């Protein structure tokens, strides 16, 4: 890699939010196209403002690219290479826990999510990871569900406890 390439600021990731925002603004305007003008007004103004700001930003990026100050790389967007796999798996576990909580309830999902996350992220020994996860899930259940009466998603564990006590 040349020194000139190294000096270029990677702005590929910087474009995600403006482009996603612009796409949403266009969709928003499309979604109000049949409304009476009074109901369209505020959304149109906001979408117009966002599109104008994104246009300004893209012009700035274009000038930077033409001048060789910017490159289209992702830079350090995904963080250190050596932990990418474990962090990726952690994100998959987060997604899985969001899906599972409706079926298994707060306590079991929290236990499963914590135990697997600790193991995936490299906490050893595994026994300690499982123990910490179990204690945390039980304390969470005691504090939020039993003590504060919070409406967390119910599952087999909560139903069993309700039946027992």
């Amino acid at each position, binding site marked *: 890699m040349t020194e000139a390439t190294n000096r270029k600021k990677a702005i590929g*990731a*910087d474009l*995600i*939010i*403006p482009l996603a*925002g612009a796409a*949403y*603004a266009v*969709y*928003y305007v499309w*979604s*109000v196209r049949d*409304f*009476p003008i*009074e*109901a369209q*007004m*505020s*959304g149109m103004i*906001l*979408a117009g*403002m*966002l599109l104008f*700001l*994104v246009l*300004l*930003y893209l012009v*700035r990026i274009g000038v930077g690219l033409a001048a060789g100050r910017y490159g289209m790389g992702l830079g*350090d*967007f995904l*963080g*250190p290479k050596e*932990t990418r796999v*474990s*962090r990726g798996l*952690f*994100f998959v576990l*987060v*997604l899985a*826990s*969001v899906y599972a*909580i*409706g079926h298994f309830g*707060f306590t079991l999902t929290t236990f499963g*999510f*914590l135990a697997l*996350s*600790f193991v995936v*992220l*490299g*906490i050893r020994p595994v026994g300690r990871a499982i123990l*910490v996860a179990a204690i*945390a899930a039980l304390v*969470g259940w005691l504090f939020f569900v039993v003590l*504060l*009466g*919070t*409406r*967390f*998603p119910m599952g087999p564990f909560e139903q069993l406890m309700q039946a027992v006590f």
Partner: protein
Amino acid sequence: MDFSLGSFADLFAHAFSLWWIIIPAIFVGIIAGAVPGFAAHNTIIILLPLTLAFNVEVALTFMVALYCASHLGGGIPAILVNIPGTGGAAATTLDGYQMTKKGLAVRALAVSFVASVLGGLISSLITLVALPALSQVGYYVHSVEMVVIMLFGLALIASIAAKDMLKGLIAGVLGLLLGAMGADHIYATPRGTFGILELFDGIPLVPALIGLFAVSEALVMLEEKSIVEGGTANVGKVTWGETFHEIFGAFRHWWNITWTSILGLLIGVLPGAGASIAAFVAYQQTQFFSKHPERFGTGIPEGVSAPESANNGVTTGTLVPLLAIGVPGGSTAAVMMIVLQFHGVPFGPRLFVEQPQLAYGVIVSMAVSYILMIFTIFPMVKYMSRITVISTLYLAPFICAFTLVGAFVPRGFLFDIGIALAFGVLGFVARKTGYHVAAILIGVILGPLIEKSFLLAMRISGNDPMVMFSSTIGNILWVMLVATLVLPYVFKWRRERRAGLEHDRLVESEG
């Protein structure tokens, strides 16, 4: 009823006699503030049966103490793990978390607690004296002024929170547009919802807060083994002597705390403006008048004291419109209104005529709550700061497990946990690319409010857009808004020009 010094002394004595309800309320309030999703009003709603069972004075004292403590509690996770417990603590993350990363968590917490307690105490004492005058402020602010105030607040946040103002503005306006999702205010027709039924009421705020701050922070946090730069070796064990040294040291910022709490009080009086705007305005003003504005954002105590004192100044402010004109200044005030209604207590001017001891007693309870917090909260600094030595490998899963489920609480929809996750991804991208998450969040909060005020102003004027420039206060605010957007560029240009001239002079003298 004429209120003498003796009457106030009686009210204070009576409030102190309710310590048995204030102290538990403080602890519940701190937890409610520190856990995203458990805002004060949610907690009061959960405990509503309890508050309805008390007599009206005890119920109000309980709610007021819980409310004050929750504003203080919101700053704790903001400092320690970069996750504001409430929207009002978003500005505290800017310098508070930077101090933690430098291994100065004890100092940051001490400054935060002193600023919160002192700020809340000062603003409640001022309110006590100036209640009749303060209650008039709300009459001068109409829908036009509210639109400009909110735009002004958003512009401030965009210019402060993001290092690049254009990116800050994009983040803020994107937040506004996301906040304007859902049924429109006139015809109740859904807009920008992708046809998803759960979004017809708009973006729920708690999942947005949890996603933008908690989930995204957990994902970013895992890139390092420790929160503290250079590892936990930089965080030594703190003695009691050092803890109290930091607490007493925090009192050096008393002047900054005083005027930012008054600023918070004045902004709090405006219905809808809220703690988040007050905290950012206080931060920006402190930076503006500082001798070293360039150090803000790098982890300095003034960057913690200003937003925290303003945030707590707002607590009294939001009660003023409720007590004086019967309009709740915020969601917690609205819940208090319901309790007052249940007990058959009148609002507005009638409250001051029929039950003045109750009207003034609420503010006195607030002052007493802050006094009692000195003895209950300050010793906790020593222990709370130890959270920074926990490895991120434990912290990140804990944060995700216990905050994501909080998104479920307000509406009871599993879908809201998905919203929190989506905002978590948005927050991750924003953090990694310099679009500050606070600007997006404040946009989401203000989106529906600004739209409501805008539409109201337009309807009243018969859809004449010039109504936005029709009031003197509004026009002054417009000028301030433009100045907020333009002045940073002017100052930057002047600094660069001065540095250039200095450089040329040095080259010449060396030549």
